[in-house]
């Protein structure tokens, strides 16, 4: 118990955090140490990351077609984005996907992580099984299977037929294709589940035992111990989940064979810019769409960070 007892012994009343000696030092007291710790990141950022990002920004103002030198065209791409109905369609599809699939996946992942956290026999077995779908990624085999399951004469419809319901072709009907992709996304809840599990492990058990002796119900324990202490991890999964969902590509690509069909109902924005960049050689326009996407994601992330002040609890 040494570390925790140490922790407790050290706890100082709020408002007197840190010794005066530490507090008086400059706001940037760690500049040198930070340079050391961040050295790989700084080199990587300047040498590998920044260049391509700037190039793509530049290209978004050009007519770059992959094979010839780009010509600067000013705001022509922006103008075009305003009038491009397929871009608007793809924005709509992506927004619905993000708004529905991210929260649902996170709730499922959190619920199962809490269930799996402790006190269950065969825990590691369940964890591995539940993670399996996430291991498969964009495998060709999954695309094939998905059609067997959600096709017109697939498993799901065979099951529905037992109840006398004639199901649609889930992935081939414009009305249900996107929902099917959302189910596929929720189904791969393994990654956030694992992160939740790792986060749950950081919560000292003693808190629960103390609460238990106080007579707090499970639900109350979850609300007043698990949720606040896990909030930095929930926040992480939410931010990265949103960034990831906005950039979803593989699933739609694999299921619709890159078309975003039927009738553009699964045309994610990344799929659209891929079609434009690599299919029609309009890399300048594709870069412009990518930067529009960046602005949208950055906006969503900024809102997230702002809102986090009200619900994310840090112990610092």
């Amino acid at each position, binding site marked *: 118990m040494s570390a925790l007892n140490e922790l407790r012994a*050290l706890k100082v009343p709020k408002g007197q955090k840190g010794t005066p000696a530490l507090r008086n030092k400059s706001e940037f007291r760690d500049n040198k140490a*930070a340079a050391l710790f961040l050295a*790989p990141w700084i080199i990587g*950022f300047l040498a590998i990351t920044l260049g391509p990002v700037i190039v793509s920004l530049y290209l978004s103002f050009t007519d770059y077609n992959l094979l010839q030198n780009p010509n600067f065209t000013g705001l022509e791409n922006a103008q075009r984005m305003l009038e491009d109905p397929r871009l608007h369609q793809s924005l709509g599809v992506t927004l619905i996907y993000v708004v529905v699939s991210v929260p649902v996946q996170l709730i499922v992942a959190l619920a199962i992580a809490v269930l799996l956290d402790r006190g269950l026999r065969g825990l590691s077995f369940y964890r591995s099984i539940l993670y399996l779908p*996430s291991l498969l990624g964009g495998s060709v085999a999954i695309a094939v299977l998905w059609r067997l399951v959600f096709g017109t004469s697939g498993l799901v419809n065979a099951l529905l037929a037992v109840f006398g319901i004639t199901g649609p072709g889930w992935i081939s009907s414009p009305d249900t294709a996107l929902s099917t992709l959302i189910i596929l996304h929720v189904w791969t809840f393994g990654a956030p589940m694992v992160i939740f599990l790792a*986060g749950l492990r950081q919560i000292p058990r003693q808190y629960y035992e103390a609460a238990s002796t106080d007579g707090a119900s499970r639900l109350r324990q979850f609300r007043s111990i698990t949720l606040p202490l896990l909030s930095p991890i929930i926040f992480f999964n939410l931010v990265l989940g949103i960034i990831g969902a906005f950039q979803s590509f593989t699933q739609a690509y694999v299921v619709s064979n890159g078309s975003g069909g039927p009738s553009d109902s699964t045309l994610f924005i990344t799929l659209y*810019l891929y079609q434009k960049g690599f299919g029609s050689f309009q890399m300048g326009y594709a870069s412009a769409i990518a930067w529009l996407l960046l602005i949208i994601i950055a906006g969503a992330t900024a809102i997230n960070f702002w809102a986090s002040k009200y619900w994310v609890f840090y112990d610092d």
Partner: protein
Amino acid sequence: MTDQQTVSRPAPTHPARPPLTDEERRSRGAAERAALLRRQRLASIGKHVGLILLGLLMLYPVLWMVVSSLRPNGHIFGNPGLLLDTFATQNYTKGWNALAQPFGSYLLNSAIIVFGSIVGNVVTCSLAAYAFARLRFRFKRLSFAAMLVTMMLPIHVLIIPQYVLFAQLGWINTYLPLIVPKFLATDGFFIFLMVQFIRGIPKELDEAARIDGAGHLRIFVQLMLPLMTPALATTAIFTFIWTWNDFFGQLIYVTDPDKYTASVALRSFVDSQSQSDYGALFAMSVVTLLPVFLAFLFGQRFLLRGIATTGGK
């Protein structure tokens, strides 16, 4: 929202009651314990039933893939069932030898990239995360924002400038474009992940160490790293899985077929424009899945080592 009150005043701020010791727990009343046990057992059975049902749902595609790999070509499609009436292992022997090299050499190539990526990500991302989470320095918010923003651009518009960059360095047809960036902490996902974990570790621990005169490097190595084991394990496992499954980068940068990775080699079995060998594809998909599954099975043990366990030693 009244909930906010309870949420923003979390449990750790009232550590009035000291945690129970093992002796105290043992001395609880026997009757109380029996009732508790019964209730726990019922709940546990319920949990197991639910998990097994869920597990089957999750397991089905993988089982189907394994079963399909044992079906002869032409019997794979239109058969979503899991019952096997033939046991055809020829898909495995055929798939293993169908390409220019035995499939094992592609697995080895993947393993080299995966190993390099794990070492790189674990070391450099944890260093950067410590700086972002614990140090005070100039441009901290700016650089953190910059790190996040670079994750928001889709790969498809970055790949060509990146390719040009690596081509100028003469790195095409080597694994360097796939490994070196990991040693330069370019994976913001893991930095952010570890920042969140470090921020969950009570700051009093390292402030105490600082008062004892420990430098940041010592705090990082001796105090933080052991406490961060779950986050490091998560980073290692995810790096393994994502690098192993990555296709686009490996496709673009590796040109010599002998240097192909498993995920690139897998696609050689299927081509939408010509005759494909699905039996071999499924067989080698299973072979490719196996190492990741084992890595996960093994690696997840380290997810369990958090404060809760290290504190108990």
